[in-house]
């Protein structure tokens, strides 16, 4: 019930080289921007695309290994795939869709129907068994697609952007529900998404892909505390700097300098949470070791918080309350000083 793969594929301008591993009962999330090659990884694992280099193995059995000449076709792999937009067969009812895989594998009609009905019941779709996919909502279609994949008891379950086809109102519930269903599956799971919230909800481990390469892998908390790329930092919403540390001083790669409370040496990343950044309309005096001058570039409202993006020699994003925005009269173009306590700066080797 474990998956182990190294995916080397050339597709047009994209050169993909990704190692991925998922243990039984574990959900690994492939996170990355559009065009990073996430879906291609799933297609290779499912056998819809052949490897140029590397290998795909489930429970130690090779499914695709060009070096050894091994190739198991899609229909013989113990892998189920939930497609983006679900790809339910439009000419079959929900029940027939779920039963399709069992029938294709030679299960008798009556048994297939019974087991499919059980699964529809399990995903709460028993009342819609006779419905055609066109009559189902996005969330309902997803549950049928999940039942269609899980009824085959796959060793590996692949899900491509499982929540992207849903509208915002049902997304929160569906996300939680999907997590519960995934946890009930004993095999390994690989979920592709570009949404960090989906990643956080669905997965234990995250593999971040950019332009066909793994830029960072680990638990989401690690990503948040120690992002290793601009993309990951933006994803988890923190300020990330790169520079050379000499003791407490970090000389930034672009220009400027930060002072941290801890000591470090050599190439480092420095991360600052936007909540730890204070904004002032006049140059502040007192204890903060880091004061960055700049102008407000723009403001993003996020719930009851406002993210203020400050442009300057050292760009920084601050998170403040709407009250503070009003009080400081922060608008685009306003001159501001951002202060960061040295203790709020975490530096770690690059």
């Amino acid at each position, binding site marked *: 019930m474990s998956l182990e793969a190294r995916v080397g594929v050339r597709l047009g301008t994209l050169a993909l080289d990704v190692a991925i591993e998922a243990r039984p009962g574990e959900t690994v999330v492939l996170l990355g921007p559009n065009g990073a090659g996430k879906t291609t990884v799933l297609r290779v694992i*499912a*056998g*819809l695309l052949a490897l140029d280099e590397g290998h795909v193995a489930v429970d130690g059995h090779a499914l695709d290994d060009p070096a050894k000449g091994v190739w198991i*076709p*899609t*229909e*013989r*792999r113990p*892998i*189920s*795939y939930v*497609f983006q937009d679900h*790809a*339910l*067969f*439009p*000419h079959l009812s929900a029940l027939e869709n779920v039963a*399709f*895989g069992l029938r*294709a*594998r030679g299960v008798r009609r009556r048994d297939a129907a019974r087991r499919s009905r059980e699964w529809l019941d399990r995903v709460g779709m028993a009342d819609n068994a006779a419905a055609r996919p066109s009559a189902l909502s996005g969330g309902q279609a997803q549950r049928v697609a999940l039942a*269609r994949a899980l009824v*085959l008891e796959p060793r590996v379950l692949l899900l491509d952007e499982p929540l992207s086809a849903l509208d915002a109102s049902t997304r929160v519930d569906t996300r939680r529900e999907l997590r519960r269903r995934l946890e009930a599956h004993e095999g390994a799971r690989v979920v592709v998404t570009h949404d960090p919230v989906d990643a956080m909800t669905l997965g234990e481990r995250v593999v971040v892909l950019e332009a066909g390469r793994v830029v960072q892998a680990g638990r989401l908390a690690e990503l948040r505390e120690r992002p290793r790329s601009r993309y990951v930092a933006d994803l988890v919403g923190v300020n990330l700097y790169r520079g050379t540390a000499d003791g407490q001083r970090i000389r930034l790669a672009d220009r400027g300098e930060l002072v941290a409370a801890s000591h470090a040496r050599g190439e480092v990343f420095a991360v600052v949470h936007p909540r730890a950044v204070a904004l002032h309309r006049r140059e502040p005096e007192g204890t903060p070791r880091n004061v960055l001058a700049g102008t407000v570039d723009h403001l993003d409202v996020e719930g009851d918080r406002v993210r203020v993006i400050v442009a300057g020699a050292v760009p920084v994003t601050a998170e403040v309350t709407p009250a503070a925005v009003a009080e400081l009269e922060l608008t685009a173009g306003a001159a501001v000083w951002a202060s960061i306590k040295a203790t709020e700066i975490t530096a770690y080797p690059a």
Partner: protein
Amino acid sequence: MRRRTRSRPPIAVAILAALAVVFFTVPVVGLLQRAPWSELIDDLTDPVVRDALRLSLVCSLGATALAFVLGLPLAWVLARTQVPGRRVVRALVLLPMVLPPVVGGVALLLAFGRRGLVGQYLDDWLGIRLPFTTWGAILAEAFVAMPFFVIVVEAGLRSLDRRYEEAAATLGARGFTTFRRVVLPLIAPSLVAGAALTWARALGEFGATILFAGNLQGETQTMPLAIFVELQTNLGGAIALSLVLLAVSVVVLVSLRDRWFPA
């Protein structure tokens, strides 16, 4: 003066367009007004006419069946594979659509005739004689009409979302199961449209049939051939057969209107 939002055509264009409509309409009206409605039943039960009706039905359905059996695999190969020379094959398939049917008949005769390229071996080794038989008529009609089936079905296959086939594969379905349970049902509209066009074309086939299969009553004399012969001796029969073919054409047109002539 009220202004019109929908532009009106220039007067000269309107006149020419109207002429075109008249040109298309008058022959149909002419046929209908000469129709011996009261004697229609008698005309249609005339032995020659009856034989022609029966033969046309047999041959056109036979040609459509042949198009299904041979044309469906061909359409699949053209739409779904990367076989080298695909473009040449597609051109060859399209050729009968633009080739004068009479030329098709000559070509068939030279290929499958008793002394033809293939025909001599069919005769010598297998004892099969195609020219001047009902099988020959079916072959001639299929030669001319099958391209319609191939073209329409290939287009249907091309527009089918590949993800359904991929989904079927991930669910454990082999190629043939996927084809039978997913592809065929999803391209059913194309199959029906292709078959209808093929059938209608086969029903009206004249040139290739008369050259390759001849004009033997009860054997190879289909409706168009019978109309040609009857026109000289039994005008009523010719008109009755023409009306049948006109009615069939209208039915095919109406049944395919949503597909080919969206409003």
